[in-house]
């Protein structure tokens, strides 16, 4: 009975490992949504040059620039530093925009949703909400 239980869990473990490996690196690339008057091309070049990034989602809207990025596994340890550097680079390119850069998975997820949903009207509201979420401390 004991042996059987061990076997069962081992099989389950194997299934989980296979599942994780298959779903591991599914999405990557750069998505940019631009409905402002800025040129998004410059930002794209910055993202391509950065070797730590695996996927980028950027939304330009009025005076806001929201960027969600996912990092390579071991770059995640210096997440905050990479966020800061990227923000600095973008601020140099777009000095008049309010820039938010985050390596948080939530922002990446929500930015993707924003682009997919195409709700142009309340885009600014949603971006403001995400900025508030990032400031949340609890």
């Amino acid at each position, binding site marked *: 009975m004991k042996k059987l*239980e*061990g076997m069962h*869990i081992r099989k389950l*473990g194997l299934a*989980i490992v296979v599942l*994780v490996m298959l779903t591991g690196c599914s999405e990557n690339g750069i998505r940019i949504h631009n409905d402002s008057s800025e040129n998004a091309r410059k930002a794209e070049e910055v993202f391509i040059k950065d070797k730590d990034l695996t996927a980028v989602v950027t939304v330009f809207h009025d005076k806001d620039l929201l960027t969600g990025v996912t990092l390579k596994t071991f770059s995640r340890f210096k997440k905050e530093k990479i966020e800061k550097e990227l923000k600095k680079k973008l601020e140099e390119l777009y000095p008049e925009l309010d820039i938010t850069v985050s390596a*948080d*998975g*939530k*922002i990446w*997820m929500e930015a993707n949703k924003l682009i997919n949903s195409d709700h142009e009207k309340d885009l600014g509201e949603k971006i403001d909400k995400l900025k508030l*979420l*990032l400031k*949340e401390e*609890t």
Partner: protein
Amino acid sequence: MDEKKYAQLEQQTSPKTPLLRNVIFAFLTGGTICLIGQFIALFYMTFFDFTERTASNPTVATMVFFSMLLTGFGQYKKIGQLGGAGSAVPITGFGNAVISAAIEHKSEGYVLGVGGNMFKLAGAVILFGVFSAFVVALIKTILVKFGVISW
């Protein structure tokens, strides 16, 4: 038979600890628990307004709750037998320690038995957790005051 001889005899007769097997199973069990925790964190991020950073609190609470349920239904000891430290070190071990102590002392009554002994094992975790948090916060406050690092 003196002490030395007895120790020698004891070592010869007792079965050898399968160290490598234990380590591997502990690794896999702990890893699986953490994987489940990761999925729960993802759940909170997808369906609620939690970021990666803030999702950790409800995730911890949920994991403790799950392990408490499993302990109550007598399933967690099976995981513990298989995984050893792999099931005790993650936060689920905390829930297990609380509920197993509560079950053990149920026969002594609900107030002095369950209430008095519930945190017999987990009390040490809470005490030293709070104390070490206090010490770390104190060190950080001093360092910030002297301008070595910033918040």
